[in-house]
Every structure is written in C-alpha cells, then in structure tokens.
C-alpha cells in the first residue's frame, strides 16, 4: 500500500498550504448552513406545544453539546498518532483542541442552563449529563494546565497526549457512572421521517443544517488555531519567513 498520503501529514508546511485552500470553501458552506438553519429554526419551525418559544434553543444546544463530546476522542486519536508516529501536526491538534474543547463545553453548559431555567425552573441541577459535561470541562482544563505547567515542549507534548488518552477512557467511565447516579435530563430523542409524527422532518431538517453549521464552525476554528500554532512553531523556518515577507 502506498503510504505517501499519510506521510504528507507530517509536514506542517503542506498542511498549512492545503488548509489555506480549504478555508474559503468551509467558511462559505458554514455561512450558508448557518443562515438557512437559523432562519428556519427561529422563524418557521412550529412552536413546541409545552415549551413554546424556549424550545428553539434546542437548535443551538444540541449541535454544540454533540460537538463538545467529540473533543476527547479527537484528542485521544491525535495523541495516539503523536505517540506512535511522532507526527508534529498531531501534537498541534492535541494542543489547540484542548482550549477549544473547553470553550465548546462551556457553550453547551451555558446554552443548556438557559434552556433549563425555563423548562426545569433552575439554572443548574446535579443531573447526570450536566455533571458529566462539567467534569469533562474540568478534565479539558486539566490538559490545558498540564501543557502550561510543563514548559518543555517535547515532554509536554507526550504528557498531554497520554493524558488525553487516559482522559478519553475516563470520560466514558464518568459518563456512565454519573448517569447511573442521577438523571433528570431527557433521553436522546428518536427522529422520524413520517410527517405526521411528533418529531417529523419539519423539526429535524433545520437541526441537521444547524449541526452541519456547528461542525463546520468547529472545523474552521480548529484549522485556524492549528495554522496559527504552526506559524508560531515554525517561525524560524524559511517558508514562514517568506510568507511574512510577502504579506
């Protein structure tokens, strides 16, 4: 099998140039999806018969919460790639994903609280999902602070990769144990294609637009911060100097 495609990822310069070509497309797709999703969700989706207008925050909360669950698997995967193949780009991803993940988790918690204050009558309850997301937030901050504390970059990179893998396993254990402990949060909803059902297409199609938009937003933020970090690390390389001289 030809492995050149894999080795190319080892070159930060190659990734920088490639991602530069992707970015305009990603931004365009994100803006389109976001405009369609937001207009549809906020203006045209029928009101929930119990929750009224409040329910519309569903279209922000669900995509943000679902993406925040993807951070530990992402970091664990990138961390494994870094530990096994010593790929610098993978470490850059582990590094920039941690604070980004903390932000997304905070957003999920905040949008959930705003939803909860109207439907549950409180900003915070010690419910299973809320608690496990809060603990995930702390674990991500732990990865960030470990990186800051270990200034030596090679050691810090390997330590954070390991902590991401351990954290990923732990997040799963935390999730199940906390659900077992206390659960008030509504279970995941099953959506259906039939238009006469409660959760028919008029509910979930705008949700799909929002989910795609938020995933694209996540991809764009990750790529932008990765590019930023690459420039920082490679600032002594000739191609970065040429780039700076040109701009």
């Amino acid at each position: 099998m030809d492995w050149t495609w894999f080795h190319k990822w080892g070159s930060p310069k190659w990734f920088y140039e490639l991602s530069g070509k992707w970015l305009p497309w990603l931004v365009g797709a994100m803006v389109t999806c976001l405009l369609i999703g937001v207009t549809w969700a906020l203006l045209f989706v029928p009101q929930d018969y119990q929750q009224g207008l409040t329910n519309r925050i569903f279209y922000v909360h669900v995509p943000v919460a679902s993406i925040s669950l993807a951070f530990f698997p992402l970091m664990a995967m990138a961390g494994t790639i870094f530990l096994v193949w010593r790929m610098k780009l993978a470490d850059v991803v582990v590094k920039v994903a941690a604070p980004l993940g903390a932000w997304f988790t905070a957003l999920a918690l905040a949008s959930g609280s705003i939803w909860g204050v109207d439907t549950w009558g409180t900003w915070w309850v010690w419910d299973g999902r809320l608690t496990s997301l809060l603990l995930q937030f702390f674990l991500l901050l732990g990865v960030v602070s470990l990186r800051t504390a270990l200034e030596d970059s090679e050691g810090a990179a390997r330590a954070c990769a390991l902590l991401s893998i351990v954290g990923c396993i732990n997040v799963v254990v935390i999730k199940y144990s906390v659900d077992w402990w206390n659960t008030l949060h509504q279970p995941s909803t099953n959506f259906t294609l039939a238009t006469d059902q409660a959760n028919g297409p008029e509910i979930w199609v705008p949700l799909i637009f929002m989910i795609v938009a938020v995933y694209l937003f996540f991809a764009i933020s990750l790529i932008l911060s990765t590019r930023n970090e690459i420039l920082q690390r490679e600032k002594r390389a000739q191609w970065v100097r040429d780039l700076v001289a040109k701009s």
Partner: protein
Amino acid sequence: MSAARSTLAGAVVATLRRDLLIAYKRKNDLFNPFMFFVLVATLFPIGISPEPEALGEISAGVLWISALLASLLAMDNLYRADFEDGSLELLMLSPHPLYFLVLAKNFAHWLVSGLPIVLVSPLIAYMLNFPEGAYSTLVLTLLLGTPVLSLLGSIGVALTVGLGSRGLILAVITLPMSVPVLIAGTLTVSQTLEGASLSGYLAIMGAMLVAALTLAPLASAAALRISVN
C-alpha cells in the same frame, strides 16, 4: 543482586520492601495522610452542623471525600523522593517490566497511606453518627475504592513528577478522574441502607479495581518514561 540472577518476583518484592522500609523510617509519611483524613472529617460537623441527624445523612459522603483528599495529599510522595535522588531512573533501567514495579510501588504506597484510613474509618463513622447496619459496607467499599484512587493518582503524579510546584495541577488532573469511585462508593452505602442487594454494587466497584489494576500502571509507567526522560 545482579540483573542476570534477579527474577521478576524478586524485583517486585524488593521494590515493595524498600518502599515499606522507607515509609517505616520516615514516620511522617505513615502518619500524615491518616491525620489529614481525621482532620478533614472533623471539619464537616463544625462547618455544616453538629446535629446527629444531619451528620448521619452526609456521613458516607464526608468519609469518602476525606479519603479522596487524604489520598490526593499522600500521592505527592509516591515518586518525588525517588525522582530527586535518582532511584526512579535506576528503577526504569532495570530489565523488568516497569508495569510490575509501578504496581509494587503503588501497592506499598496504598499499604502506607490507604489502609490506615480504611481501618480508622469505622471510628470516624461512629463519631459522625453513621447509620448502623452499613459499617461493613463502608469498610468494604473503602477497601475496594482507595486502591483505585491510589492507582489513578499515580498517573497524575507520574505526569507531573518533574515539576517544581505541582500541588494544584495534580488535584486538577486527578480529582475529576476519581468521581466514578466516589459515586460508586457512596451509592453502595446508601443502597445498603435502603436494603438493596449489595452484590451488584460491589461487583461494579470490583470491576473498577480490576480495570484500574490492569490499565493504570501501564499509563503510570508511560508517564514516568515521559517525565524522567
């Protein structure tokens, strides 16, 4: 003992004996986690309420949190002295798998810092008006849970052993990871009081212990290799 003649079991026993001997010579290590456990547990009645009923309701949680904090405090001297005097490097140079040596160190550390807490817990439980009929469950869960806390803490210590000041970062890394143990421990106690069958809960705690025993020393060993490099 030359490397050619030493067996794995011999190396494990030697590590265990060495760590226990050091702990015995430095009585502080033996005494401090235990004292800390008793002190933290004492703060709760003062801070919350001396009413026996209120105390009885929270006593299981108080004991578990005190055990968790005491184990966290004790974690610091698991590898620090060995790192500073270079014996950790020698340990890693040994021909035996680091997994078993780390396991031996963790076991010695638990015997010194975890077991005394488990043994004194019924006394503190009595002082906190712990509900009758759950004492054996409390001791059993602590017996299963405190080794898990030590094994998890060991990963955090191994990751941060090279740092000068690491008190807080160790807590930030370790405490969220300890939550499942805390939940399982306190839930088992409260289920006993409701008359539920214990076997399922104890099986979950046992499963946590087995998972921690098999996986955590691997992570600790990898973390030590990174830190001591």
